[in-house]
């Protein structure tokens, strides 16, 4: 066991993946620089330029080439530097990567991993703070994984690389170095599609994923101090997502607050609320609350804090569910 940040855990996971000869890591500045977030630090030296590939600045080319590699039998891991830069590659993702299995009725597949750092909170330039997970979740044929902690990041990355289908692996930028924990040194794999009930409780269920898990945990700690029994669920995977665990929890607590960083309308939280409405309506003691970003462009550095949901916003929503 060793203490690792999320960035280090992903680095460990990438290094383990690259020990297989069919795995290739490619992207802008992933080699010599070790990635803009240094997540692939040291991998070029260990695995060489044929397997850790610095590409031209061309996101569509990166994903399109990774698609061709995957179809031809490799296991490419493609990195896009920021979610805001993933749009040039979006055609490749939704029109080819996600569809080739269906288009060829299983004859060809694209088992690639598309790593995308996402989310706000580091005061970066425009296009560096987006949470567009819904775009990928809404695309049939993709799996979408969003770890919130080092243990999950390493285990889910291993599962993503091994998965027979394309996996979008979203990395929470502001948690890269802010969340640390002891994780096993040896390789391990966690199942895609299984949520974690991090804390058990009986009064209210908080449901979140990825970057927002930090604020969610902080809010839960405050609530626990106030004597509220909070159940905390980290979805870990958005496609497929673990609806049964969420439904079971809310049937027990009768109250739910869904916390997402993305814009409010038609965010993934809306899907969770819809599912709970279908499956847990009669157990509800209060309307389900959504704590979200707003239907605005993510503000730049000086006003960013107004956008990203903070602990106070979560506590207010929980208070409403407890008092209604």
């Amino acid at each position: 066991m060793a203490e690792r940040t999320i960035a280090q855990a992903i680095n460990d996971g990438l290094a383990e993946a690259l020990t297989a000869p069919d795995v290739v890591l490619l992207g802008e500045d992933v080699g010599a620089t070790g990635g803009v977030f240094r997540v692939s630090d040291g991998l070029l030296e260990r695995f060489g330029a044929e397997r850790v590939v610095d590409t031209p600045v061309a996101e569509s080319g990166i994903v399109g080439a990774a698609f061709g590699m995957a179809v031809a039998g490799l296991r490419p891991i493609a990195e896009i530097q920021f979610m805001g830069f993933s749009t040039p590659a979006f055609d490749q993702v939704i029109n080819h990567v996600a569809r080739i299995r269906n288009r060829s009725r299983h004859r060809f597949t694209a088992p690639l991993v598309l790593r995308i750092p996402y989310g706000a909170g580091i005061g970066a330039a425009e296009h560096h703070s987006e949470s567009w997970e819904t775009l990928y979740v809404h695309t049939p044929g993709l799996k979408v994984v969003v770890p919130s902690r080092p243990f999950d990041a390493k285990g889910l990355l291993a599962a993503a690389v091994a998965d027979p289908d394309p996996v979008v692996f979203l990395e929470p930028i502001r948690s890269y170095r802010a969340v640390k924990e002891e994780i096993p040194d040896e390789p391990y794999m966690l199942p895609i599609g299984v949520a974690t009930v991090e804390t058990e409780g009986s009064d209210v269920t908080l449901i979140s994923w990825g970057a927002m898990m930090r604020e969610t945990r902080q809010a839960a700690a405050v609530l626990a101090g106030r004597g509220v029994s909070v159940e905390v669920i980290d979805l870990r995977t958005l496609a497929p997502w673990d609806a049964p665990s969420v439904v079971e929890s809310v049937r027990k607590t009768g109250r739910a607050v869904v916390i997402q960083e993305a814009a409010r309308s038609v965010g993934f939280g809306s899907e969770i609320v819809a599912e709970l409405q279908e499956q847990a309506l009669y157990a509800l003691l209060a309307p389900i609350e959504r704590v979200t970003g707003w239907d605005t462009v993510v503000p730049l550095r000086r006003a960013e804090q107004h956008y990203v949901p903070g602990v106070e916003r979560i506590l207010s929503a929980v208070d409403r569910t407890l008092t209604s």
Partner: protein
Amino acid sequence: MTTPLQILAPDGTVRGEPQLSPEAAARAYEAMVTARVYDRKCSAMQRQGRLATYAPFEGQEASQIGSVAALRADDWLVATYRDAAAMWYQGYGMRNLILGRTGDERGGHPEEGVNVLPPSITVGGHMIHAVGAAWAEQIKGSGRIALTLFGDGATSEGDFHEAMNFAAVFATPTVLFCQDNGWAISMPRERQTAAASLADKAIGYGMPGVVVDGNDLFAVHAATSAAAERARSGDGPTFIEALTYRVGPHTTTDDPGRYRDDAEAALWRERDPLQRVRLHLETTGAWDEDRQQAVEAAATDLVEEAVAAAEALEPLGPGDIFAATFAEATPALEAQRRRLERDG
């Protein structure tokens, strides 16, 4: 502009020594005849309501058969909705080509061992797939290469740039073969580029660009063979511009009379890529009317058999549409399948 490479003139005379042996030339010609029978059958079937929209390739048979004739059986071919002749010649079963055009995903499944992707319907996104596949083969050290076919319109897409650039930067064993057929639906070549020649674009990427008479089987084969050899020996990609012509409509829903003079198409019909090979084969004594009729009859049988096999297949059932989204259907997809089967 570079003078296009021509070996076989429209009158059937040959300049220099063709690389295709008389037997190989006869085989390629038989394939061209078969492809034309297939193409006309598909257009007819669409008019009968038996196929979804169909994109005919008539006039482009030399480009498609000639380029694929330069490949090995396990090389990659990544092509478009107008390239059924090429795909079939590289091993993609005719039944499934037709099945795909009837509107059935099972048509996207070529035989095991045939490295031909189902046709790309979006324009221009597929060339980089050939670059990626070739790159993978390079990493694996398999000796395989990839050929990608696309039209003049595709060179206007941003993805063309990325495919050319990646191929050249990483020296992937890829042949990028443009069938410059004059028209992208209603837009002439001049509206796709102000460049004198599409092949000139290759210079900017640091790869060779070659212009060939795309209606000349021998020239297409020679240029593609040289490019394939170059790719296989580790010297990187080549761009080939084959000057040809889409003598038919863009698709069966298109009316070329709205945007082009039929006199232009008529001129190209006279440059028919099949006719000149036949003239040449006749002068060598390798061909005569009896053999022509026998080949046409065999082609008709082959196509009819493929059509019958495709049409004999029951359409996908409601449960089947969920079966190829993932390797294994997710619980949510299973629930949706049950709902469809219950509620219709």
